[in-house]
């Protein structure tokens, strides 16, 4: 039973009506899976669940992807479904702290998920309890145009110095070394994550996003000094602050830029624009500080039971079903992403295979800047990174501002 509508408000109204009619055995699910692949993945998942549990009656409402982000606050407090999808890490913290998500540690314990979903355990845990089930994640890294690399005789850079040296070659030939579009801010967050993870390592990055380290710390300054090596000579596409991440894709496709730091979701539009496995390549972000453990960004999508759910029994059954190795194999095949369950199989796509190897050998997995840092810090931080990428000389001013924000935000708790 699918009720699909683009307008979040309308969906909410529909949900309110169906919610009132709910009785035992009804399971209402809200998701933001309005894009084709995620929608199909959830359709498959729900069909399978229905087959296995014919006595449960699933009512599924699909929200518009962007509208969902604001709608979730209304429906969690007003008329909650039995299940809703969201994101891991600090992104779920506001809801957990406001008591809007249900503690599902029992689902983890009863199904042995602490072993099978081990890699995502830290990002699902707040105050020693688990608050949801992760079902998919994907890698971040550098996507590159193989033809451009061949033309300039550049090999895949292993270290940051190699990368900068390659950039100089591209620049001399009139090609942007790397491209991005930071209008929506988060691509700038990805850049900072990698610069910090490679310069200072996983633990430092986590401490920083959790407000335990000052932004004016010399080790943070070091990150920006390294970053400036890329920005000051103009190796990054100019005016990136005014363009969306999708608008930067053609630069890579047309060979106007050699590389693009992005998540694996960029592969689909790049291939739709004409790139193939022969022209599009992927490599992990190069090493900056030698010997430091390699950590990666791997944002995880999750499902939760709202505290006001009317049918938590069946909802927990659904979560256990979602956590199983077979279901995660199946839905991630459709999503073109990686299953979190370590017993699942990974799709044959070379980018997925590469990502899987990279993530399973990583020394730590970060969620992403806007999921690791609290919402307000994320916003101010990414705005600062966007400014730094346009004006690297303003670094001290920006860091002072971020430090002032840190002092205010984290003391509120």
């Amino acid at each position, binding site marked *: 039973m699918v009720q699909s509508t683009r307008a979040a408000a309308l969906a909410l109204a529909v949900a309110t009506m169906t919610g009132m009619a709910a009785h035992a055995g009804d399971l209402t699910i809200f998701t933001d899976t309005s894009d084709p692949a995620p929608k199909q993945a959830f359709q498959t998942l729900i069909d399978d669940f229905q087959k296995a549990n014919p006595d449960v009656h699933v009512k599924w409402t699909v929200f518009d992807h962007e509208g969902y*982000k*604001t709608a979730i*606050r209304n429906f*969690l*407090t007003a008329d909650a479904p039995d299940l809703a999808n969201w994101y891991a890490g600090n992104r779920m913290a*506001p*809801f957990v*702290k*406001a*008591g*809007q998500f249900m503690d599902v540690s029992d689902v983890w314990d009863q199904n042995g998920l602490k072993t099978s979903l081990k890699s995502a355990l830290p990002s699902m845990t707040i105050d020693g309890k688990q608050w949801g089930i992760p079902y998919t994640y994907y890698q971040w890294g550098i996507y590159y145009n193989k033809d451009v690399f061949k033309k300039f005789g550049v090999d895949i850079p292993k270290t940051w110095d190699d990368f900068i040296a390659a950039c100089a070659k591209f620049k001399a030939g009139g090609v942007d070394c790397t491209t991005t579009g*930071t*209008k*929506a*801010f988060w691509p700038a967050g990805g850049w900072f994550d990698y610069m910090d993870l490679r310069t200072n390592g996983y633990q430092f990055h986590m401490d920083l996003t959790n407000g335990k380290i000052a932004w004016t710390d010399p080790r943070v300054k070091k990150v920006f000094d390294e970053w400036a090596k890329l920005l000051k000579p103009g190796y990054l596409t*100019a*005016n*990136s*602050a*005014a*363009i969306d991440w999708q*608008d930067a894709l053609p630069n890579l496709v047309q060979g106007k830029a050699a590389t693009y730091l992005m998540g694996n979701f960029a592969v689909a539009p790049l291939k739709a624009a004409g790139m193939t496995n022969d022209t599009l390549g992927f490599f992990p972000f190069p090493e900056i500080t030698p010997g430091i453990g390699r950590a990666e960004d791997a944002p995880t999508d999750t499902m939760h039971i709202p505290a006001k759910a009317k049918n938590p029994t069946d909802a927990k059954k659904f979560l256990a079903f979602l956590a199983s190795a077979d279901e995660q194999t199946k839905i991630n095949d459709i999503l073109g992403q990686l299953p979190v369950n370590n017993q699942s199989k990974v799709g044959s796509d070379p980018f997925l295979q590469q990502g899987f190897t990279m993530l399973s050998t990583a020394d730590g997995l970060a969620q992403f800047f*806007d999921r690791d840092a609290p*919402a*307000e810090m*994320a*916003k101010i931080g990414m*705005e*600062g990174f*966007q*400014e730094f990428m*346009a004006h690297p000389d303003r670094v001290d001013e920006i860091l002072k*501002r971020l430090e002032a924000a840190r002092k205010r935000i984290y003391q*509120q708790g």
Partner: protein
Amino acid sequence: MTSVTTNAAARRHGAWRRNQRRLAPLMFIAPGALMFLVYVVVPIFRSMSISFYDWDGMGAMKWIGFGNYVELWSDPAFLVSLENNLIWLVLYMLAVPAGLFIAIFLNQNVRGIRIYKSLFFFPFVISQVVVGLIFTWFYAPDFGLLFKLTQMLTGTGTAILADERYATYGIIVAGLWPQIAYCMILYLTGLNNVAPDQVEAARLDGAKGWKMLWYVIIPQLRPATFIAVVVTVIGALRSFDLVSIMTQGGPYGSTRVLSYYMYEQALSEYGYRMGYGAAIAVVLFFIMMVFISGFIWKMYRDETER
């Protein structure tokens, strides 16, 4: 028994008849007033009360008195928004003379004038979102028309929306496009009502050109000017859609205006500060109140003077 009831009915009837003239207008106004109360007045006071709390929109509310307002005062992002609102207000007023100029230009009888009028009115008819998109592409780095033009003239292209010095002005220009069309229509209807005998008389007295415009035409357009100023001031203060579409407040927050900052703080993806957002809304409300009460006072004065 029966006589008592008929008596009572007659008295009720009489009460209605006596007060009919007083009650009828109240009854007509009631539905509108109720809506206004529920959707405008109550939310205003709710916003004011929320602005005294620290609240994430979901959990418990914590009373912090004027804490949000004190923080606003030292918040650089708020000051930037306030400054941008002032820039909007000043530059948006250009729509009034520009609209007047185009209206006078179009107020003539040549073949196909209706088509030209519709073409000039066109930007007001299309959605602000579309206006925002058109201008975003016009300014876009690499493929934008303006970028190409500046590249041709100066050698280096200027991406208006990527540069904090120009971005706000770039958005205001986009906003002026439909606003000028709006003012133009107001003046076109106003020009229809200009008394031909006065123009004729002025002409006999030797008035022409600027003098004719300034002393004869414009005074007669006063009602149109008043409405044009009102809609332009309000349009400038509630500018939100263009900022949201064209820059999302960027580059690095330099194009924020109060309404957008309020949305960011209280409702957006990263905004969980209802109290703080409400405080911004209250500040914006009072700024608007200054203008709105000015307008209402003028309207009241005009009506009572008659």
